[in-house]
């Protein structure tokens, strides 16, 4: 039996020991596996905070998962190189490594609902056989031209943090009018995340080099026709891939059930 260790000695010992739980995760956009440290109890504490975030739980969860991924992912791969699509796949794998290898999904057929556990490893293995499109798409309405792509995790975090600080802070969640007033800024935020550059005549503006407030201001001034085309392209090229990831068909009793994989705070409980 050892003498009483100091706090620093213990933390060092724990960090060394925790390496036994380190693993790898598959990142679709890089088409490779990268090193990931084990999550720890302080990450659990962060996840629990989303339970008290109410209607803003999604915003809080996105900020928290950024901090967790920054902490556990191989630091040689910056989060500006990993997309939000990858994030969902990584979170599933973090559940597989740290919690358990299955996740509950509700499958529905008409009014019938059946809950089943799906095997995450098998699910990830099936993803590795698929091809996903992470290329930049160009959209034009004749006057403006925009480049759009999946937002990076870093990008998403910047927008979510800005939204929390400038729009959500101080709002009473029971005030329906105040919540309704969030719809427009929420809409602009969601579109703005996908736009990486804008070209007006010969002027090329790399939005990624600008702070969030400036990007929002620029996008708000874009023409309605360009915004419409951007939305159509996001839906066709990117949202459809998210759907392919999160919507799972399953045949039960000869009926085609549809399951929706929900990746939120419950993923770590």
């Amino acid at each position, binding site marked *: 039996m050892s003498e*009483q260790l100091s706090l620093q000695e213990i933390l060092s*010992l*724990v960090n060394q020991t925790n390496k036994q739980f380190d693993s790898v995760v598959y990142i679709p956009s890089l088409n490779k596996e990268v090193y990931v440290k084990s999550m720890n*109890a302080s990450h659990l504490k962060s996840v629990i905070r989303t339970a008290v975030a109410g209607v803003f739980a999604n915003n809080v969860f996105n900020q928290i998962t950024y901090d967790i991924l920054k902490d556990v992912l191989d630091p040689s791969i910056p989060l500006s190189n990993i997309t939000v699509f990858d994030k969902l796949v990584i979170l599933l794998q973090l559940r597989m490594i*740290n919690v358990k290898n299955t996740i509950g999904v509700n499958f529905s057929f008409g009014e019938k609902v059946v809950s089943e556990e799906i095997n995450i490893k098998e699910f990830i293995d099936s993803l590795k056989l698929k091809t996903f499109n992470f290329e930049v798409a160009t959209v034009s309405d004749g006057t403006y031209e925009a480049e759009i792509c999946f937002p990076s995790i870093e990008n998403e975090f910047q927008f979510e943090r800005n939204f929390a600080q400038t729009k959500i802070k101080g709002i009473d969640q029971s005030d329906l009018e105040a919540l309704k007033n969030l719809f427009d800024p929420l809409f602009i935020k969601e579109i703005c995340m996908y736009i990486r550059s804008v070209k007006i005549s010969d002027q090329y503006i790399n939005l990624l080099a600008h702070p969030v407030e400036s990007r929002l201001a620029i996008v708000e001034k874009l023409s309605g026709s360009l915004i419409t085309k951007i939305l159509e392209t996001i839906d066709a090229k990117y949202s459809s891939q998210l759907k392919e990831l999160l919507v799972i068909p399953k045949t039960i009793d000869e009926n085609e059930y549809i399951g929706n994989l929900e990746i939120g705070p419950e993923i*770590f409980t």
Partner: protein
Amino acid sequence: MLSYRIWVPSTQSYLRMYEINCEQYRDILKSVEDSDNFNYYTNKLLTENITDQYSLLRDGFTPTLIDKFIIMLQLKAYSCNTNLSLTRECSKCATKTDFVIDLNRLIDSLAPVVDRSFKKTITVGSYSVVCDIPSINLNPNAEVFTDDQKLNRYLYSFISDISLSDNKLLLPTRPDDEKFKICQSLPYNVTYAVKTHFVDDIHNIFKELLFFKTKCNDKKCGDELEIKFDILNIDDIVKLLFRDSNNTNMLQQYASVSNHCHFDYSFYKSICPAELETLYNMITESSKSDNAEENTNQDIDLFQQYRSQTQGMVESESEFK
């Protein structure tokens, strides 16, 4: 002050403790609506009332949340009264229902579930985690917890010690902030195993444990009124034990007794609430008898009554009229 043998579930042994005195009872009644102060005064009582001769504090005994409840329940029964009168409002029809809980029978009904040690060791990889019902913080001067610290206690309070390979981390000997830093660094799967194999089990054991059950007074409603045992809100359950009285009652009793009896204030502080109530009841009864006597009393003329003995005497004006 009288002392009693008090049963402690976590050690499965008796502890000798003094009864609750009026000063302590008053502090508890005044703080019952303020969780931090209530915690302070009840924890202070737990340390102060252990008699030196049988003190387990020197041996490092720290009561668990369940111990606190069972000890307070016994002390309340010995020092105040064994019947707890409460009122519950029906959530369906809003009718108020009064009911009485016999604290001795309550102990008997809770005993099969709470009267044991809950200690359990969970092993994940190189980690061996000893889990138990959380201990109370006996330091009466402990800081009020911030939200972050409250979250720490919620997450980590069921972990009482950790061994890592051959190293014992000796959590009970460390201050709270060190304990929480160590627990926070534990791998997620270890904390998750503690949650699923201990914490969830504890919640499942206690969530259906009834403190009391009765029916709404309104016969048309007849809804069941239940008070359940919530392991993480033990202080709320302990507060219930003291909700059948309030500081105003005590002050009223004290005022009445001190009006009729000339005891030193230290006497009132040192007796238990049951004794104060007994004195109050004696005085109230005595006052009733005095009032009854006054109402039936008639003036007696002694000169008329003892005429033969007062012959020759002159009746003078009464000094008492």
